């Protein structure tokens, strides 16, 4: 009995922005003052991410399957699904266009001084990612040619074994299976699927509860995650970042333009106040910055958009998980600007058809980067640069040098973009909330 108020208080305290910022500040302070403690803290930050990772897949499956099943049960599904697909595609292409335009206008790789180019070269040659290429001159020709382009992209989406996809955590494949399975469940005769959908719904609710519970640890985890980052930052020379100033600025400008556009979209669609698109979504944005893991933000996005912006919760439960995985606005902007940066750096002129290629290939590559790490995302530059004959290998070392920062920008853009897409395709909350909140105050449990 004495335990409970403190537990309830714990949840309230840890969920407050003050706690989050305290954790952040404390982490930075520890990282700068005592690098040893920061290193000792690192495993605990990883534990927090592990906990989130544990919940992601059941959440994803249950959310998508249940939402789709209900959608197909109540009819109007094809129309709705079409709208979602159209909105996602349109937003992705617009983001790609903005990225491309930013790259052209800012021209981060053009007109670099000779000293800048020299310092870029030093970054490349000191990068550990530039392995020696060794080859025997008398060798058997390589037989297997890697699949490229569309076939490879599709192979990345379709699972051949859903259980393997689950156990290796392949989000795209799991999403694909959930989509197909959800539609199939929705098409069974009315009432027959109730046991399954309500069971899956409970799984979804439970996963959301678990994720909210885990997220009360965010201030502590932020401290543990930021401390080693801060000590690393303090120790590493600023050289690479300074040399890449133009590139990082271009990326930030592109991301900012897209961000502002999304804010306007959200404001227009929800009819809220001028700053509301940011203040209402403060919580998921902080989560995105803190965890750099967009999937961890799903419950927070649903909660914030439904309670603060009045979006229909049922719709959100389908659109947000889908959007978090497919709306890769961050990578789209990144790919567009990065490809132009490489072309400008090596003074290779591109024609209109090549710009069109970059536009669409960056959308594809961005979707293929779903669920991968920052390093993997950068590796997908090959999909764009190889067909254009751009030398991307040296540039990859440059991008990696500034990736901790850009990864952050990309995650924020992914989460915020999902909010924008959700505000476009989801309905308003017309009737009053008829259900109890997902995460009831502990007192109501009668403990």
């Amino acid at each position: 009995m004495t335990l409970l108020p403190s537990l309830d208080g714990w949840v309230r305290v840890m969920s407050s922005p003050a706690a989050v910022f305290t954790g952040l500040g404390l982490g930075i302070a520890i990282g700068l003052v005592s690098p040893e403690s920061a290193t000792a803290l690192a495993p605990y930050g990883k534990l927090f991410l592990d906990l989130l990772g544990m919940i992601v897949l059941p959440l994803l499956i249950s959310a998508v399957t249940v939402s789709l099943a209900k959608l197909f049960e109540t009819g109007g599904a094809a129309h709705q699904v079409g709208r979602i697909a159209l909105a996602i595609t349109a937003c992705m292409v617009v983001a790609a266009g903005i990225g491309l335009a930013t790259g052209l206008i800012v021209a981060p790789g053009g007109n670099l001084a000779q000293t800048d180019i020299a310092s870029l070269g030093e970054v490349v040659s000191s990068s550990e990612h530039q392995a020696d290429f060794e080859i025997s001159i008398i060798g058997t020709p390589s037989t297997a040619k890697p699949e490229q382009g569309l076939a490879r992209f599709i192979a990345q989406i379709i699972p051949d074994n859903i259980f393997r996809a689950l156990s290796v955590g392949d989000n795209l494949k799991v999403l694909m299976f959930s989509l197909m399975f959800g539609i199939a469940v929705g098409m069974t005769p009315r009432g027959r699927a109730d046991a399954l959908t309500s069971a899956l719904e409970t799984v979804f609710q439970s996963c959301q509860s678990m994720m909210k519970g885990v997220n009360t640890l965010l201030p502590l985890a932020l401290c543990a995650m930021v401390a080693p980052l801060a000590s690393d930052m303090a120790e590493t020379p600023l050289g690479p970042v300074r040399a890449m100033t133009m590139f990082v600025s271009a990326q930030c400008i592109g991301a900012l333009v897209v961000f502002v556009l999304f804010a306007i979209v959200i404001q227009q669609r929800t009819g809220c106040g001028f700053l509301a698109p940011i203040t209402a979504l403060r919580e998921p944005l902080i989560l995105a910055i803190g965890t750099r893991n967009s999937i961890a933000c799903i419950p927070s996005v649903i909660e914030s958009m439904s309670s603060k912006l009045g979006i229909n919760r049922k719709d959100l439960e389908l659109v947000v998980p889908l959007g978090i995985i497919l709306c890769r606005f961050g990578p789209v902007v990144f790919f567009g600007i990065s490809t132009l940066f490489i072309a400008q750096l090596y003074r290779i002129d591109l024609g209109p058809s090549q710009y069109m290629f970059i536009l669409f290939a960056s959308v594809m590559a961005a979707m293929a980067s779903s669920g991968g790490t920052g390093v993997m995302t950068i590796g997908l530059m090959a999909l764009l640069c190889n067909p254009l004959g751009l030398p991307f290998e040296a540039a990859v070392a440059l991008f990696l040098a500034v990736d901790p920062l850009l990864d952050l920008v990309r995650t924020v853009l992914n989460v915020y973009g999902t909010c924008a897409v959700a505000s476009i395709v989801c309905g308003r909350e017309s009737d009053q909330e008829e259900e109890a909140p997902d995460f009831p105050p502990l007192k109501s449990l009668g403990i």
Partner: protein
Amino acid sequence: MTPRSGLALVLLAVMVLLIAVSPSRADPPPRPADIDRILRRGTLIVALTEADAPPFHVVTDGVLSGVDIDLAKGLAQSLGVAVTFDRSARSYDEVVETVARGQADIAISKLSRTLVRARSVSFSPPYLTLRHGMAFNRVWLARQMRDHDMAEVIRGFDGRLGVVTKTSYVEYARRIFPRAEIVEFPRWADAVPALVKGEVAALYRDEFEIRRMINEQPELALHLKTAFLTDTQDHLCMVVNPRDTQLLQLAEIYIEDLNPKLTVETVLARLGKVAPKQGDTP
């Protein structure tokens, strides 16, 4: 002193005396002529080129140092003699001749083992083995790699290939890259800018010099991609006069017992110490 230890001492003295008197043990065993010559002289004469070749042998602040110098000193030490350097030779071939004429005992001077030189002198086992290396213009390479992978591009190389004139790489290039258009540069320092500008698609030289280029001018890494040919070799050996067989064996054992062995990496690391950011000499 106990009586026992006293007895032991007496016995020892007797034994020493016996050994000293015994005629067969008194004579030192005959020494091979070449070792005898060096020991009598009390110094090992090592031939080097007149020009510096960092980090193998280079004069910094009037002091001769480098990988070759360390090897020479170590060898002399294991013989128990001093070391004298003969830097009269103006080219690598002249160093070999110095030894062939008996003017120096041994040559340790970044000498490659070649069949022509092997006619007149004996080679030790290699103390450093280099592979052949290439540096590609990244833009040219990316164009090629639209349709081929890197291994195909190298094995079927048909672009303009830059080499330094009058080095063994001119001949290697003709043999290994028959489809390439070979462009000869008088000096390495001319070849590098040509590669950066894309006037040649690739340069071809030994692993060490390719790495040295990137080490000394890291800014080139943005424009150049290096590759090393694993099944090609360039052996750096010591050279002795063919009649000095015992000295040759000593050099053999000395090189074999080197620990740690010399590697391209360790030698490159010395470059930073011996000759920081020095210009390229071919």
